[in-house]
């Protein structure tokens, strides 16, 4: 028998850690989604897709800016000392992933803005003539457009990985303490972004491409989740306990049903039928993928807080 009783009852700490509520999973999800959208839209710019009439290059950067701002607002809501939010930008702490993330986000905004300038939505073009002027200047330098595409891909990858590294750096929480979490969140973000673009794309080629790409991302995601669980299950006893919380414990029903089943396996099956033209494309698989990505963040954040040494 080993029984530990303590007299401490600190708010948000006891009986088990619950410092992060809905705000952080929403921020991590939207950060991952935008990271995926940046990589995909950056790739489209690099390939010159912005010249196509119906390309989603016109809508993606602006939507990314909006979604990222929503995520940042969720992060702001989570801060307990909101008026000190600027303190994150008064310093750079090289060992702090959160500090890295704060500064990455500072570079993400101008990269997305430049991406938006390449192919602006009509309503922005007519309302802000200055942007149109800048856009014309940008189009005089095709290499510049490719560079914007590359910047978006690189910053998107950094943002996507950061959302996972942020959690994996907390050695005190065994479930999070896996370096593979960064790649899991990056691939999950790419998958959610591909699903999102699949839903909004008007260009048939892009829709088909992203449905196929999403199948690839979902397969890789399944593989990474498997590696993540194997890594924990073959580690120390606290890491094994953390893995079992997901596999057979408190979080198992949500994990297996909503993350693995409805979030990955079912949409992967339906999209595989759709890309082989056995069934029609529909919004159901992408919606399931997006919802699965969101639930994945909720489960990982909640289970990680419940895991301890």
């Amino acid at each position: 028998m080993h029984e530990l009783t303590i007299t401490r009852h600190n708010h948000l700490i006891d009986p088990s850690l619950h410092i992060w509520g809905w705000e952080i999973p929403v921020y991590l999800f939207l950060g991952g989604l935008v990271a995926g959208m940046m990589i995909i839209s950056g790739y489209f710019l690099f390939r010159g897709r912005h010249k196509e009439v119906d390309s989603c290059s016109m809508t993606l950067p602006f939507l990314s800016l909006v979604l990222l701002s929503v995520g940042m607002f969720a992060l702001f809501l989570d801060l307990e000392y909101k008026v000190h939010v600027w303190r994150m930008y008064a310093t750079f702490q090289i060992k702090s992933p959160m500090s890295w993330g704060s500064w990455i986000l500072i570079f993400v905004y101008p990269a997305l803005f430049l991406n938006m300038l390449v192919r602006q939505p009509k309503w922005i073009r007519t309302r802000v003539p200055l942007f149109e002027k800048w856009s014309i200047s940008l189009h005089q330098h095709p290499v510049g457009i490719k560079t914007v595409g590359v910047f978006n891909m690189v910053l998107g990858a950094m943002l996507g990985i950061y959302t996972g590294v942020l959690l994996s750096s907390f050695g005190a929480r065994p479930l999070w303490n896996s370096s593979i979490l960064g790649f899991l969140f990056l691939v999950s973000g790419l998958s959610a972004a591909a699903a999102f673009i699949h839903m909004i794309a008007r260009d048939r080629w892009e829709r088909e491409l992203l449905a196929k790409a999403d199948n690839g991302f979902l397969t890789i995601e399944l593989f990474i989740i498997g590696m993540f669980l194997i890594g924990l299950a073959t580690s120390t006893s606290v890491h094994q306990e953390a893995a079992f919380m997901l596999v057979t414990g408190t979080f198992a029903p949500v994990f297996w049903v909503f993350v693995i089943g409805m979030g990955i396996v079912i949409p992967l099956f339906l999209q595989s039928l759709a890309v082989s033209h056995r069934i029609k494309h529909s919004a159901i698989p992408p919606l399931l993928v997006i919802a699965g990505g969101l639930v994945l963040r909720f489960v990982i954040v909640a289970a990680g807080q419940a895991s301890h040494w």
Partner: protein
Amino acid sequence: MARYAMVIDTRRCVGCMDCVVACKTENQVPEGFNRDWIAYDARGTFPEIQLEIRSERCNHCDNPPCVDCCPCGASHVHERGGVVLVHHDKCSGCKACIAACPYDARFINPEGYADKCTFCIHRVEQGLKPACVSVCPTHCMYFGDLEDPNSEVNRLLQSRKNHALLPEAGTRPHVFYLT
């Protein structure tokens, strides 16, 4: 350079919570929160059961993950004695330090900043002992400089069996428990 540490004799500690009350009074810890607390750790199988009563707090680690993860530079190691402290005016309340601490020693003060034990550095700088140490009725708590070979804490750690909490977490804590 001083390196402060606390040594607690678990054979003398009776869990009276005087240390907890002294800390709350000295540091005006808000109602409902604790910077230190009592742990009752029971192990074994009846009738071979051992009970260890410990006064616990921030371990002022040599390798403090709470300092490394802070994005604002609010969590820091004090130049005197290696004590881990928080600059209240720099803290944004992001709670990363709370997630990083394997001892769950930190909490969010109702004013919004991360709060924790300071080893009563304001008293130590005046040559006094931390409040919890100074009030202990069983004299089970000791405070001193590990760098001083003649300090009471060094002498106790060399002469008595002792352990720290979660050494496997790699934080190199500076609160030791004599057994």
